[in-house]
């Protein structure tokens, strides 16, 4: 049985720019910032939101090492996944790279790096986005 729900080209294109440049959404009323486009603020209900480029630095809020990966990452081996809280309070999910799990903890300062996220197959789309690494 094939995995049909891995992203395909048109779907990747819809969010490519936001993923590449780390663009989020800020509510103009309550100030809350979200990763991903939104028309309505889930916190205060306001419909006045604008796109903003997110800070490229933040701290690890929580993290773990994935040792039982989904099928599309089975060849990758264990990887670190985290929620990072950016300098403006926006939280997002990301992989932490260029370090071992022993080198990080909750609170570790990290910065965004542009990386390959995955690929479909030999002839399919390669998709990119931001991962984070500890600030040396």
């Amino acid at each position: 049985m094939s995995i049909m729900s891995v992203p395909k080209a048109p779907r990747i294109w819809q969010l490519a720019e936001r993923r590449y440049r780390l663009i989020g959404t800020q509510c103009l009323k309550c100030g809350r910032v979200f990763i991903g486009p939104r028309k309505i603020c889930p916190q205060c209900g306001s419909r006045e939101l604008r796109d903003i480029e997110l800070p490229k630095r933040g701290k690890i809020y929580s993290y773990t090492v994935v040792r039982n990966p989904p099928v599309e990452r089975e060849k990758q081996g264990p990887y670190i996944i985290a929620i990072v809280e950016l300098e403006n309070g926006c939280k997002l999910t990301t992989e932490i790279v260029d370090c071992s799990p022993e080198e990080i903890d909750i609170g570790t300062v990290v910065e965004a790096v542009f990386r390959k996220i995955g690929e479909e197959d030999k002839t399919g789309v390669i998709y990119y986005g931001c991962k984070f690494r500890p600030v040396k």
Partner: protein
Amino acid sequence: MSMRGEVAVIGVGMTKFGEHWDKQLRDLFVEAALEAIEDAQVDLRDIKAMFIGNMGSGLWVEQEHLGPLLADYLGIPGTPSLKIESACASSGMAFRLGVISVAVGLYDIVLVGGVEKTSDVTHGESIHHLASVADREWEAFYGMTLPALFALIAKRHMMQYGTTREQLAKVAVKNHKHGSYNPKAQFQRPISIEDVLNSPLVADPLRLLDCSPISDGAAVAIIARSDIARKFTDTPVYVLGSGVATDTIALHDRDDITTFKSIVLAAREAYKMAKVEPKDINVAEVHDSFTIAEILAYEDLGFVKKGEGGKLIDEGVTELGGKIPVNTSGGLKARGHSPGATGIAQIVEIVLQLRNDAGKRQVSNAEIGLTQNIGGSGASCVIHIFGNKR
């Protein structure tokens, strides 16, 4: 209107949860449904509608349109029947909708069920499918998995409240012990704290024995208007309260990931409708998809204050024989977790307990029971409160 006491469960049935290599989704459902129909002493033709919880038949077995499929294979094509999806809370939600349909007087007798068939794909494919309960674009796309979400929660809970690795292990030990008394449980062998601590890491700090399995299974309940329930059974179990809530789909969009707001909100609705408080609950089935989830459930259901869930497991309060036994079936951990069927499987256990039919795991004098079923990392939650008196 209040639905309190308007609807009763008159029969229950379920398959054993586990790896049913020789059975298809429809076989599992029909097996559970026939058991429930026999238990309820109703005729198949008495069933006026079906609500079926299922999380991912389209993903796992590429079969949608379960409503008509399952009515057809149950021999009652023509019956209104539809699938309800809310991730791992699918059949808890199906139960709620079935109860509403009876309470408003639309139908007299309704079949509510849940079913999932997961073992026809590889483990990696199942992990991929399970990640669809999270935000595919902003969580799963970046490599997030369901166990990893709960690992992030565990890590924060341990940091903020001092919950220990051993306390998490004790949840699995308790539930395996309970499961050893349940002939329908997937795992019927006791385990030790050392077994948990020495099992392979899945997503640090969670280990294999902190995680529920991904099971095949089906569970069914037959519900009826309370005023006709005694025509079919001497031991109707009444639905006293029902609550549902949601939260942000992505874990990272919540202020505090050590509490499931959806549980708090759904519990508030259910307790209010049932006119009971947490201290009135005699037995509960909670959603221990991972050991940390049971700790959060204790706190968010109000059994203890936030942060003290670990203490509750240390004191043995939630063991059989304790003040409020939790997951007497073995829970998701040992009875098994068949995403679409788990919600009704929890209800099956509480109904058996309140009918005094739970055998070796019977809680003495149980009169009020609670089920709590969440979807994904708590983005949805459904809670029901039952009583053996109206």
